[in-house]
């Protein structure tokens, strides 16, 4: 009941599904309870440091933090190998809870060194707890879920920042008020409880998954716990991880420089009430971050993708950095720090975490330990090292420090932009690598693995043995002529040797091979036999004598006549194309026996006489010899493409015949055939579309160099997408009316076919392999591989196509999909 109410409240704001509600709320609360105490701690940190030591010491604090973090990371790595993730997080929370109280006690003694120790501790606090939170997020969500839900739970963190900062601002009684640490400690206790709830939820989920695994589902990877050295080696080994690390370094060095500029200006401009100022400032920053996160993060990703969203943060900071360099006022300091932190907590955090998603859980965990915990603080140390020589210049005014720091920051931001462009390119590649090809186009596999002509010839040879020994001899001669009478085939043919023994064909089996039977005459060599037969057949006298015989056979009827015609049809294929006997093929082609026609078709294909092309095309009607006719037409190749195109475009021709002509054109597969098929597609005769698209897809699979006119493809893709919408709308309507299942089945089949057409069309203009992989994974993949497939398409397709296609393939409820289709049907933009 309460769950339903929360879902009703949240669903208009967040794209959350009912099954994700619990975990989304838990992650929201977890992040809230990490960031809220941190903002209280941070306000005291800045106030105490500036109050006791001043901005001049900041670079040393950055450096010291980096060194301490190095040890913390090493310690964290050692511990995490020994205990479970849940225990590690709980222990960390307990540790920070107690140290929080210890700092409160020690603050009463007024030690000068306390602010610097507290500074370092506060940074360790956020590094450890923040990293642990994101590790949990990465364990739980896939990229699509992350894209949908990240805005929500990041808002939880930001809300925590607002509450924490706001409470610090409201409750601070003195310039530096350590009493607020009690409040932070209370929030940490709540955080430990939320972590326990997440752990319980995860355990229950794993039990269900284990049960599913037993049913044969794909097993999820369980990440191993890495040590620091292992993490370092992992990042060094992988280019993509190195790029992420470089960006994190550049981001944080710039952020440290910005922090220095901000604190310097605040110290110079503000008198008292530092905890209050930092509390309200942090809260205000978080309000902006909250609004950005809630209203913009998801939309930015959706609209501009990862590439452009990643660039937003450095571009804004570049402008602000140039601004504070020109005017070092409190306003500019608040603006640059505000931009830095609000963008860092909202868009940048989501974008950065998204970069980790396509990496395997094991790699990701290792990389996160190193990058988020070590590189993060190490970068602050680099920031400190950059600032120390600037401080050492002992400049007459703080504005000069700000200006120099601005120049350095701008240069670094430039590098940051360059690496961001590179990492976003690698991100797309990494997502694509997550997708495996489920199957190859089977006709391509067959073409690569089999010699179809040879296969058919072998079967026909064996079959001919039962028909007539003459026909059988012709087949053997054919095999020999082609150099295909291999020892294996001889063995096969000799499987039943009785026939062979009784015939004169023993000669075929004695050459270069152990004789399988006793030959009556001297052995005949293959090449001699070939030459002799060719010579006999080219003799004028042979032609004369055999013509009379052929004419007699052509006039015969009945079963005997059929076999004789088959022999004639076969033997004409051995003649020269100029032989007058070749003319008899027309009669044989027209013979009502499919076996006779088949042999005639084969001979026509050998001789490639153009005048028989229309007859061959006619033969495509007959299912018993369709494949033989297609194969014969394919052998003519490019020279009959025009004729085939005429048939394809002739609306008076039978539609089934035109579909087969499309497939013959695809088998010929040249730029010209592709152009003809495209022109026909442009004509928009819907009955032919599926056959045309399949033919084009075949050409694309086999000849990647062939180009396709983009405009025709995009127009047709749009049309197919619209058809899919219409079919789905009709399906939903038919279903709601409780109509017969037969109609639903037809609609379902049409939807599947349309979906197939859409992807085949996309494969013509986008990288074919990427589109095929995405489609196959959407069809048969697991939940995660479907998510990666959609992510890959999201980064490959143009915006208009993407916006139109994603509602078809995204994991949406039937109602949401229907709503989306109804809206898009009316306003689908032109591609």
């Amino acid at each position, binding site marked *: 009941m309460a769950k339903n109410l929360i879902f009703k409240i949240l669903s208009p704001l967040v794209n959350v599904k009912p099954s994700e509600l619990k975990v989304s709320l838990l992650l929201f609360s977890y992040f809230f309870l990490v960031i809220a105490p941190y903002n209280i701690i941070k306000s005291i940190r800045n106030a105490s440091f500036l109050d006791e030591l001043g901005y001049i010491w900041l670079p040393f604090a950055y450096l010291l933090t980096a060194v301490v973090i190095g040890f913390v990371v090493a310690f964290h790595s050692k511990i995490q190998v020994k205990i479970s993730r849940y225990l590690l997080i709980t222990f960390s929370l307990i540790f920070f809870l107690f140290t929080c109280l210890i700092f409160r006690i020690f603050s009463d003694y007024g030690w000068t060194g306390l602010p610097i120790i507290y500074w370092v501790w506060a940074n360790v606090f956020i590094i450890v707890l923040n990293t642990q939170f994101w590790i949990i997020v990465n364990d739980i969500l896939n990229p699509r879920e992350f894209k949908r839900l990240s805005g929500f739970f990041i808002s939880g963190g930001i809300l925590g920042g607002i509450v924490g900062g706001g409470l610090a601002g409201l409750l601070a009684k003195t310039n530096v008020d350590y009493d607020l640490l009690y409040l932070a400690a209370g929030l940490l206790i709540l955080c430990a409880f939320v972590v326990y709830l997440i752990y319980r939820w995860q355990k229950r989920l794993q039990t269900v998954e284990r049960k599913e695994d037993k049913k044969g589902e794909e097993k999820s990877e369980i990440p191993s716990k890495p040590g620091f050295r292992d993490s370092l080696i992992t990042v060094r080994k992988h280019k993509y991880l190195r790029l992420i690390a470089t960006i994190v370094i550049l981001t944080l060095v710039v952020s440290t420089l910005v922090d220095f500029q901000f604190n310097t200006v605040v110290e110079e401009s503000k008198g008292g009430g530092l905890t209050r100022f930092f509390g309200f400032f942090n809260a205000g920053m978080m309000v902006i971050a909250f609004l950005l996160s809630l209203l913009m993060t998801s939309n930015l990703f959706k609209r501009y993708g990862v590439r452009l969203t990643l660039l937003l943060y450095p571009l804004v900071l570049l402008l602000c950095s140039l601004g504070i360099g020109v005017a070092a006022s409190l306003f500019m300091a608040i603006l640059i720090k505000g931009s830095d932190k609000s963008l860092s907590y909202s868009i940048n955090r989501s974008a950065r975490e998204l970069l980790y998603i396509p990496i395997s859980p094991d790699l990701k965990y290792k990389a996160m330990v190193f990058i988020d915990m070590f590189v993060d603080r190490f970068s602050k140390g680099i920031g400190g090292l950059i600032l120390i020589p600037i401080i050492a210049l002992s400049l007459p005014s703080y504005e000069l420090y700000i200006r120099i720091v601005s120049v350095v920051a701008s240069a670094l931001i430039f590098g940051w932009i360059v690496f961001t462009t590179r990492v976003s390119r690698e991100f797309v590649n990494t997502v694509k690598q997550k997708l495996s090809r489920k199957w190859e*186009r089977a006709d391509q596999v067959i073409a690569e693995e089999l010699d179809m002509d040879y296969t058919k010839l072998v079967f026909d040879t064996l079959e001919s043995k039962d028909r007539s020994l003459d026909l059988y001899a012709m087949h053997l001669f054919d095999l020999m002529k082609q150099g295909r009478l291999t020892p294996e085939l001889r063995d096969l043919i000799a499987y039943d040797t009785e026939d062979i023994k009784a015939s004169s064909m023993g000669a075929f089996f004695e050459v270069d091979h152990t004789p399988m039977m006793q030959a009556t005459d001297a052995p005949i060599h293959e090449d001699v036999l070939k030459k002799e037969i060719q010579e006999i057949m080219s003799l004028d006298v042979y032609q004369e004598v055999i013509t009379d015989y052929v004419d007699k056979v052509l006039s015969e009827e009945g079963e005997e006549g059929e076999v004789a015609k088959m022999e004639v049809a076969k033997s004409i294929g051995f003649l020269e194309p100029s032989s007058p006997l070749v003319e008899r093929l027309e009669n044989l082609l027209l013979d009502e026996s499919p076996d006779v026609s088949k042999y005639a078709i084969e001979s026509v294909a050998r001789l490639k006489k153009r005048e028989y092309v229309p007859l061959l095309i006619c033969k495509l009607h007959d299912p018993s010899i369709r494949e033989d006719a297609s194969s014969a037409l394919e052998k003519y190749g490019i020279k009959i493409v025009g004729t085939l195109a005429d048939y394809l475009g002739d609306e008076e021709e039978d539609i089934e015949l035109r579909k087969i002509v499309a497939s013959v054109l695809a088998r010929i597969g040249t730029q010209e055939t592709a152009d003809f098929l495209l022109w026909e597609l442009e004509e928009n005769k819907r009955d032919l579309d599926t056959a045309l698209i399949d033919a084009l897809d075949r050409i694309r699979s086999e000849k990647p160099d062939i180009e396709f006119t983009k405009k025709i493809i995009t127009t047709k893709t749009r049309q197919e997408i619209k058809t899919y919408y219409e079919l789905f709308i009709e399906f939903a309507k038919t279903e709601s009316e409780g109509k017969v299942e037969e109609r639903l089945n037809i609609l379902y089949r049409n939807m599947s076919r349309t979906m197939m057409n859409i992807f085949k069309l996309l494969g013509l203009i986008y990288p074919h392999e990427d589109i095929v992989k995405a489609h196959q994974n959407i069809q048969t993949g697991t939940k995660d591989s479907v998510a990666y497939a959609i992510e890959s398409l999201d980064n490959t397709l143009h915006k208009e196509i993407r916006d139109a296609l994603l509602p078809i393939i995204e994991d949406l409820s039937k109602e949401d999909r229907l709503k989306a289709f109804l809206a898009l049907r009316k306003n689908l933009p032109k591609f």
Partner: protein
Amino acid sequence: MEIHAREKDDIIIFDIEGEIRRSDVSDVTLHQLVKDQLDGGKRNILLNFRNVEFIDSFGVGEILASYISTHNLGGKLKIAKISKKLYLVFQVTMLTKVLEIFDDEELALQSFIAD
């Protein structure tokens, strides 16, 4: 040639009897029967050749066309119980490299489940 279809564990089994020959083609070919099943959403097809004596090149074309249609939709087409002689022909022509052939029906059915 006669073809009878039956279903077991979401696998369509075609029991073929006689010879798959060009001269023996009826109105509905083997390929058409397979395509009908694919249209109906079935993706696992088994051709039972227990009663098939011989096939000609037309028969090979039908089997391969059925294989292509099934595999291009992400399905599987397998063959069971072909005669020793036919298997030899399949070997020589390398059809065994492409087609999955099983000695008996049960083994073939298990292989679908294992996939």
